[in-house]
């Protein structure tokens, strides 16, 4: 049991999340429990508004639960201050967004280098690591291109390179193929799968696409703030 417990990277216990809209309270997550072992590639599915992205934000330290505990790598993150949480994210979390969220004024290389500005690395070392990350995603030849000069798939690969450049503990992907055609989407999924299988990255991916979810090692379904292993109609 102990071994199994140590192997758990993400643990959420009794997590509630309530949003307030005026006087109305919207319960997005209610009493949610979740454990994700290291090295897992977890797909989170569910209808719109079911709380998938909210759960991803809580695990990634982008938001705090209204109730409950969120631990990542044995560290409780739900009580951290804004500043500490920002530093924790920079160190432990890689984020991949549906719409890539690249800086339009920066080249692919500079975009990938961005999270490294939050480290003590030298300029030369930052550049070297950013080039390695771009190489991993197969975009070394596009390093000097700006986002507007890249296709959607290339932009998302740049986004993934940015997410992995700091060698984070956890890779969080919010609809990473949601804005891409099937072919580009498959390339992104190939890449995520390779990162999981070859480099042992723990990945949580929110998706609407059953085809994408099939690449994951486990799929969980969220409905009305509750998790299940089976899809709910």
């Amino acid at each position, binding site marked *: 049991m102990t071994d199994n417990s140590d192997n758990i990277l993400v643990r959420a216990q009794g997590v509630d999340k309530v949003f307030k809209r005026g006087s109305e309270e919207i319960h997005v997550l209610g009493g949610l429990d979740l454990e994700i072992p290291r090295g897992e590639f977890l797909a989170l599915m569910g209808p719109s508004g079911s709380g998938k*992205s*909210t759960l991803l*934000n809580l695990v990634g330290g*982008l*938001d705090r639960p209204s109730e409950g505990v969120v631990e990542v790598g044995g560290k409780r993150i739900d009580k951290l201050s*804004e*500043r500490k949480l*920002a*530093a*924790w*994210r*920079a*160190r432990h979390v890689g*984020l991949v*967004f549906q*719409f890539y*969220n690249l*800086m*339009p*004024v*920066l080249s692919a290389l500079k975009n990938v280098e*961005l*999270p490294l*500005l*939050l*480290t*003590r690395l030298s300029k030369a070392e930052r550049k070297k690591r950013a080039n390695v990350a771009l190489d991993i995603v197969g975009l070394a030849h596009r390093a000097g291109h700006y986002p507007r000069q890249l296709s959607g798939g290339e932009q998302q690969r740049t986004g993934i390179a*940015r997410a992995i450049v700091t060698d984070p503990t956890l890779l969080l992907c919010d609809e990473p193929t949601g804005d891409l055609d099937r072919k580009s989407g498959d390339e992104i999924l190939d890449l995520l799968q390779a990162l999981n299988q070859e480099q042992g990255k723990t990945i949580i991916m929110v998706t609407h696409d059953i085809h994408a979810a099939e690449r994951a090692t486990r799929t969980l379904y969220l409905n009305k703030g509750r998790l299940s292993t089976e899809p709910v109609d």
Partner: protein
Amino acid sequence: MFNWFSQVISVIGFSIRSIPQRKGSSIAALLGIAGVVAVMVGVLSIAQGIARTMESSAGGDNAVVLRSGSDTEMMSGLGGDEARIIGEAPGIARDDSGTLASPELFVIINLPMRTTGTDANVPLRGVLSQAPKIRNDFKIVDGRMFEWGLNEVIVGSGATEQFTGLEIGSSIEVGQEQWPVVGIFEAGGGVAESEIWVDASVLQSAYRRGNSYQSVYAKLTAPAAFDEFRDNLTSDPRLNVKAMRETDYYAAQSEMVYNLITGLGTLIAVIMGLGAIFGALNTMYTAVSARTREIATLRALGFHSGPVIISVLSESLLLACMGGLIGAALAWLAFDGFRTATLNWSSFSAITFSFDVNFSLLLQGIVFALVIGLVGGLFPAVRAARQPVAHALREL
């Protein structure tokens, strides 16, 4: 803290490099601020110009003597004997022709202004032969000096620019007589350049003033000689006069109009500045709104809110600074050295002066622009930094 500065520099870099994506609203804010600064510097340069003209008039070692109780030459009156006693007081410098003291008369005549064609008051000063030696840098620049004893006049360069009928060869009407203009003079940019000069004895008889004057201008042996000069005059039982340093006299003369224009200029600048602040606020809220994704992404990646605030403020300050520089340059190009005339309320006569856009005014204008930029950027910056990251990412 170790990477705080690199964060700040990077985030400011994105901010500034992304300005071209919002060039419409950025240019509008920039031009708004430029306009405010140009108007502010322009109006304040009027006050500076008047003050400079007054300062140029005054020599540090010059004194003016008026009848006790009068603040201006218009209100003063001195008998010929009094003027003679004053002219021989200790402390006054001498040359071969005697003491450098000039009893003078001061009357006002009406002449049409070149710009509007309407009549305005022009000072007509009766002087003695020592008067040019007492003024700063007096020189005849065209024509010649009037002949002593004749009803000829010479005209200051400022007066001839601002009023019609003061060219060499034309004449001014005094009573029933026509007095020909025979020369144009300069006096180091001072008040005298707004005046018409004539022999004091000619003016005395034309205005039936007998042997009286209104003031005595004197050049002292040194600025330090003033106290002795003044004490001597005020303790003399034959005299009922007051002596002032010429610098103090002109400072008092220009004070009212200087304060009025400075006050008005500041008021206009503040009102326009408020408008520009709203312009800057609007621009920066738009900028923050357009950059919501960028800012939220940076913060999601782990960038702190401090650098985000500084980046928004930097963008606002950069736009304001550019606006300020453009406005200051416009004001300098449009106004500096522009000559015009206004009423000197102390003498009720026109004073010719040049707008003076000096370095200190330009600096004031740029600082004012930066204040507009700071206030206009602060609220949007705080908003950008306070927006919850998850919420901001969801809004995309």
